[in-house]
């Protein structure tokens, strides 16, 4: 009986052990085993979403995606490492030196160096090594032709810019974030990164022992969502013209940098925006970081005489002066707060009227205007024209200079601000503000993107009116003053014949260590045309031109050069 009992206990103990062991596998290790089984059986891969395209206003491509490849090797699988290294080196050599003629010795050295690099990688005691990242389809095809066992490819994508480095500042670029994923930086790529990046898809199938998919097995396919497409207001013809003319201008005037903005004053649509020096968005790592910021929105400067039209508009709108009001203290320099204020050419005309003040860009006349207007009203108009706050343009990295608080404005500050000194603005703020004069008194919000398209559905970004700082009548008066400034001012010799263009030159000295350097200026010209029914407003700006410090001799000729091309493009005949 005892033996039967012992066998019974052993039997139950054995059963209990089996139950416990099964419980361990079925309950405690269930997730691990399920995952292990699925790993053997299921094949899962992430399908990367293409980044959305960026299109010009005519729907031609400014930025899209191109296929790129990661070339990798499995060193333990590659049999003829020497041979594979030679073949790979040959392909890279042909591509690297396709435009160069090397002598036999240099050729041999370069080839040998490349071969050694590849051999080093293939000789490593690793299962997987990367041979090339973001390699284009041409190289991939060349390598694939060799049919080397143990060399593989993985598709990815990179940005493609058919127009090269055109509009680089406007676009920004695509780089990697801390997780190695593509992310947009600066410009449109940065501002609209969320819309452009899309959503990766997932593809999961059951595989047999040979790794082939089983048709009757489990299947999951989540299609990748391609990023949204941005249609811009940027007109590629105007952008091309502006970039070409700026390049020529920088060379001709020996400037350190240049920028230009062309905007439709009626809608606030940005038609072109360009800056020099520029960079290649395909290869941003080859440029210093300072090159990446977009000067028209990220750099602040003193606008100089271009600001006069805004102060004059404020004074006329407030009816404290009229266009024929005469200045009663313009006979010579004036002293304010311990500083002498002079005209740019040290010539003085007593009794000069307000139109002549704008035509001859007279600083003393503007001080007269600022006194008539007063500090409170001047500051109120500066704010109403949109200074001291962001323009809300849809570009990353906008840096709008702030205004000093009211209590900090002294008499001398009000006087100098009237001719654009001691006040910092961005180029886009200036275009937005002067656009008020071109648009019958209405302030428009500037926009680069016209529409965002997602899977066939398009969301239009409509023009947005922000306010009406001045009346239509005031705008008309200032327009006439600006037309006369073009026809009779310093830049009259470079103006295209027969066209009615409203404009104003600006030459602002650059503050250096607490004083203004007379040889370092920012020369600019802002204007719109045709003056009676403007198609565009444009600002051209040169930083530290060396051939001449004046806007009338540098920025104005470039402005008129671009304007001539725009008249031709829009089919606008001369009015005379």
């Amino acid at each position: 009986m005892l033996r039967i009992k012992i066998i019974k206990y052993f039997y139950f103990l054995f059963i209990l052990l089996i139950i416990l062991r099964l419980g361990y596998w079925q309950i405690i290790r269930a997730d691990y085993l399920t995952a292990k089984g699925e790993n053997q059986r299921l094949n899962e891969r992430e399908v990367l979403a293409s980044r959305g395209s960026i299109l010009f206003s005519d729907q031609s491509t400014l930025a899209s995606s191109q296929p790129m490849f990661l070339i990798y090797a499995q060193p333990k699988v590659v049999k003829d490492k020497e041979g594979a290294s030679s073949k790979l080196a040959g392909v890279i050599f042909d591509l690297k030196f396709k435009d160069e003629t090397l002598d036999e010795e240099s050729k041999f050295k370069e080839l040998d160096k490349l071969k050694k690099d590849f051999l080093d990688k293939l000789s490593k005691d690793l299962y997987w090594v990367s041979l090339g990242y973001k390699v284009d389809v041409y190289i991939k095809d060349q390598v694939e032709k060799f049919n080397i066992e143990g060399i593989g490819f993985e598709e990815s994508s990179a940005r493609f810019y058919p127009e090269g480095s055109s509009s680089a500042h406007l676009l920004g670029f695509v780089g990697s974030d801390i997780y190695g994923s593509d992310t947009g930086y600066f410009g449109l790529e940065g501002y609209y990164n969320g819309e452009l990046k899309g959503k990766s898809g997932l593809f999961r199938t059951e595989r047999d022992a040979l790794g082939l998919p089983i048709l009757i097995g489990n299947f999951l396919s989540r299609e990748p969502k391609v990023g949204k497409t941005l249609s811009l207001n940027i007109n590629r013809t105007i952008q091309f013209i502006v970039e070409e003319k700026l390049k020529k201008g920088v060379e001709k005037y020996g400037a350190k940098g240049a920028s230009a903005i062309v905007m439709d004053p009626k809608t606030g649509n940005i038609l072109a925006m360009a800056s020099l020096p520029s960079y290649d968005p395909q290869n941003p790592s080859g440029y210093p970081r300072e090159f990446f910021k977009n000067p028209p929105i990220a750099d602040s400067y003193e606008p100089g005489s271009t600001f006069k039209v805004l102060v004059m508009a404020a004074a006329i709108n407030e009816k404290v002066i009229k266009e024929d009001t005469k200045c009663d203290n313009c006979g010579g320099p004036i002293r304010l707060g311990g500083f002498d204020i002079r005209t740019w050419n040290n010539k003085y005309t007593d009794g000069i009227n307000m139109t002549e003040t704008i035509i001859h860009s007279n600083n003393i006349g503007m001080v007269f205007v600022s006194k008539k207007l007063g500090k409170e009203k001047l500051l109120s108009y500066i704010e109403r024209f949109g200074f001291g706050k962001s323009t809300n343009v849809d570009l990353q990295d906008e840096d709008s200079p702030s205004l000093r608080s009211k209590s900090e404005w002294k008499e001398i500050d009000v006087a100098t601000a009237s001719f654009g000194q001691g006040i910092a603005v961005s180029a886009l703020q200036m275009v937005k503000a002067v656009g008020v004069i071109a648009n019958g008194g209405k302030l428009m919000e500037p926009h680069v993107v016209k529409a965002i398209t997602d899977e066939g559905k398009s969301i239009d970004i409509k023009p947005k009116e922000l306010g009406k700082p001045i009346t239509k009548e005031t705008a008309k008066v200032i327009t006439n003053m600006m037309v006369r400034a073009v026809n009779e001012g310093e830049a009259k010799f470079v103006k295209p014949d027969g066209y009615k263009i409203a404009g104003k030159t600006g030459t602002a000295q650059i503050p250096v260590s607490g004083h203004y350097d007379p040889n370092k200026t920012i020369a600019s010209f802002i204007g719109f045309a045709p003056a009676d029914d403007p198609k565009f407003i444009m600002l051209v700006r040169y930083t530290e031109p060396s051939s001449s410090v004046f806007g009338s001799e540098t920025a104005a000729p470039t402005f008129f050069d671009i304007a001539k091309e725009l008249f031709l493009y829009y089919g606008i005949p001369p009015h005379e």
Partner: protein
Amino acid sequence: MNLLYKFRSYPFLSRKIILSLIVVTIVAALIQIWVVNRLSTYGEQIISLEKSANVLELENKVLRNKLDKASSLKEINILARNLGFESIKKIEYLQDIGIALNK
């Protein structure tokens, strides 16, 4: 009971039915094996089709990029210059002379 009775009454019929059932079952089983075998071995063809689709898709992307590049203003400008085109220097605009013109 009624059916069993009928089978017992017609032994020839019952044998025929049983035989038919066995044949149908065997044929169905064979078809099942063939279908499952075909379906599970279609993987190779799927892989081949997948590869073809990928190649075509890649080719499509490359062609689209080439088309974009060829139609870029940068390329057109170079081509126009090489072909001897020049920008217009002087334009004559037709003035409105106040006379209706025949088409």
